[in-house]
């Protein structure tokens, strides 16, 4: 085995896995609390990307401000989906399947809406330079250590992803709102009985999940481009990471994402990239057979 290649694939796997962890936590937060298969989590992802492109490139906002605005837009879209798409069904005790169908419909329709509004072209993240001309917002520096390389955005992905994971876990464990989320997740009936407002918890969870999804969308936009079809495949990865890592545990979900990323990368030592989805779904299938609660999840009492 080529040790250099293995080491580089490990680095790539850690970067990819960290991104999967971010996506998994975003999806998992919503699913664990509301039990909604929130495929429409793709919308904040894409909305953040397009918002950043538009505010920086068209409105000419400084990059930092454009990114902040983009995250606000992501949260707003997430809350819009909750209020307009899900609340009416939840209020009437609608079936989870109905919620899934609504989510699926929104997830399918939104890229087409983006296509109609913004066109089919890829939109790079650009800012207005001193001369008023558009230029790339990021210069993705490359760091080399012999054979090994890593880029600035890769480093940021790893750092930001795990910072977000830690902050979310601390938020859920240590804050009053976080404990409300846990209560609602573990026993909705008792949570209602002690006066926890389910709707407020949903708002917080969707806002947080959408914020994290928006962060992920900004990474993809900064590294590459914003495009109408940019989000759904990543959202599906987040969905897989939840069930792979642990449906009842956010840290488990994050670690599951990391393991998935490493597996995907290492598998390419032995097989072509076209088999990466096979590896991912085989791993998921095996885990669900052997440990249905997920790799790091806890079995039900």
């Amino acid at each position, binding site marked *: 085995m080529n040790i250099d290649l293995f080491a580089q694939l490990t680095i790539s796997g850690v970067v990819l896995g960290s991104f999967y962890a971010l996506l998994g936590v975003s999806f998992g937060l919503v699913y664990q609390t509301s039990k909604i298969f929130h495929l429409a989590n793709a919308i904040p992802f894409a909305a953040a990307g397009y918002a950043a492109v538009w505010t920086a490139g068209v409105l000419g906002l400084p990059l930092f401000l454009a990114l902040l605005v983009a995250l606000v837009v992501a949260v707003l879209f997430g809350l819009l989906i909750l209020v307009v798409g899900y609340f009416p069904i939840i209020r009437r005790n609608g079936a989870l399947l109905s919620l899934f169908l609504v989510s699926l419909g929104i997830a399918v329709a939104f890229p087409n809406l983006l296509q109609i509004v913004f066109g089919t072209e890829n939109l790079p993240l650009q800012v207005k330079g001193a001369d008023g001309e558009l230029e790339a917002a990021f210069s993705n520096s*490359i760091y080399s250590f012999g054979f090994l390389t890593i880029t600035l955005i890769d480093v940021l992905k790893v750092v930001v992803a795990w910072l977000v994971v830690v902050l979310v876990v601390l938020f859920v464990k240590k804050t009053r709102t976080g404990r409300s989320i846990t209560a609602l997740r573990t026993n909705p009936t008792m949570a209602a009985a002690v006066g926890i407002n389910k709707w407020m918890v949903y708002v917080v969870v969707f806002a947080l999940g959408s914020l994290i999804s928006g962060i992920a969308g900004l990474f993809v936009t900064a590294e590459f481009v914003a495009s109408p079809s940019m989000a759904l495949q990543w959202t599906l990865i987040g969905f897989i990471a939840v069930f792979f890592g642990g449906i009842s545990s956010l840290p488990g979900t994050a670690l599951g994402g990391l393991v998935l990323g490493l597996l995907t990368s290492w598998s390419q030592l032995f097989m072509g990239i076209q088999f990466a989805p096979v590896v991912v779904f085989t791993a998921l299938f095996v885990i669900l057979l052997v440990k249905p609660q997920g790799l790091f999840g806890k079995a039900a009492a």
Partner: protein
Amino acid sequence: MRRAGLARKSVAIGLVFGVSGLLAACSSGSDSSSEDASATSETSEEAASGGDDAASEDTGGGDAAGDEATGNCINDIFGPGGPEAGEGVTLNGGMLLAMTGAGSFFGDVMSKGAQLAADQIREAGGMDYQITIADHNNGDVPTALTEVKRMISQDGIEVLQTSYGAPSEAIAPLIAEAGVLTINGGGSSPGQLSKDFLWQNRMVFAEDPATGALAYINEQYPDAKSLALLGTMENGVGVFRETAPNAWAKLTGGDVVVAEQHDVGETDFKAIASKIKASNADAILSVSFGDDLGYQVKAVREAGIDVPFMGIEFTSQAASIAGDTYDTFTFATDFYNVDNPNPWNQCFVEGYRAKYGEDPEYYGSNYYEQVFIFWDLVKRVIAAGGDPNDAAQLQAALIENPTFASVYGGSADVVGEVILDTNDHSISKPMGVFTVENGAPVLAQEIRKVSPSDDPASALVQ
């Protein structure tokens, strides 16, 4: 009962969202407000076109650029409208495109090219070309088959403009049985050649330029011995498996050290880049297409690999993904030049800019040309007293005279010309190797198509 009713309403809401999404997907796309113009060659047009000064055979009556200006450039080039030009004839055309998903950019520009052509021909007093667009969902074969069957049975299409390799190969028996004259200007492939009613108006994807591309690498980098090959499973497979390895071995005596295929739409090429780096390949040839190329070039350069990277197409979409790294990219193809002074090309470009607010690019030009090929055939069949809505007669007219006007080639005074091969239904167009400078292609070397038994170095036009 109440819950069941609510559940039904909820399902209905979900279906509404899903159906509206599908309907939006079937739209022919919006006017893009993108500032991105198609890349242009900066070299002389004669060099890019292969120096073809032949006058177009204008079967619509009138000489190219010879008539008095009528205010309608199409009439200036193709002659007056009227019954002989197909006025009053409605030709039902289908388009099988990628209208959604990662390839939606292609479907968008292809449909724009065709729609412009239809509008220009109608305004010039020619046929009324009615377009029905179907989405093959990014090259999905079952979807393509279903959509073509639907267009044939329900929309009554007489001609079809198809795209992508796998769907076009799959529909070949359908269109042959139904007698629908079909042209592919996108993912042409060896598997589509010599098929009844199926023709290509672009050089065979990857296959035709590959040998010239490798010969160019060999000439520029004579010490390069090991080659890395990248490609998809959708098209260019023959290059991957035979053409490139054989040509490379003949040119350099070297080997293919990495051969990686991927799914269309792949975005993460970091692992492949690592494998290429570990293999110490001296050059890279990619027969991938679309956005994939942009992701590949970016991943390879960010892995610190600085060997020559050769592709077989250039799109602004891929360039936007790759950013500055695309300035290290070279490609070999039958490239469309928006600055070609060919009078018909200028008419096309001006019309495209006026209608869509942006420059046309490679795929838009091919699908624009296809409609004019259909129009030319309609006029020929009318002149022969035949039925212009009979695709068999249209094809017979094509076989009788496979020469057509083109927005490629030509010169400031003369419309370009292309010739379809009546044996295998392919086309001959000028090809070149292009470098990318400041985001725009620049012709570096003219190349030609060669057969496997030829010396691959002869693919370079001296």
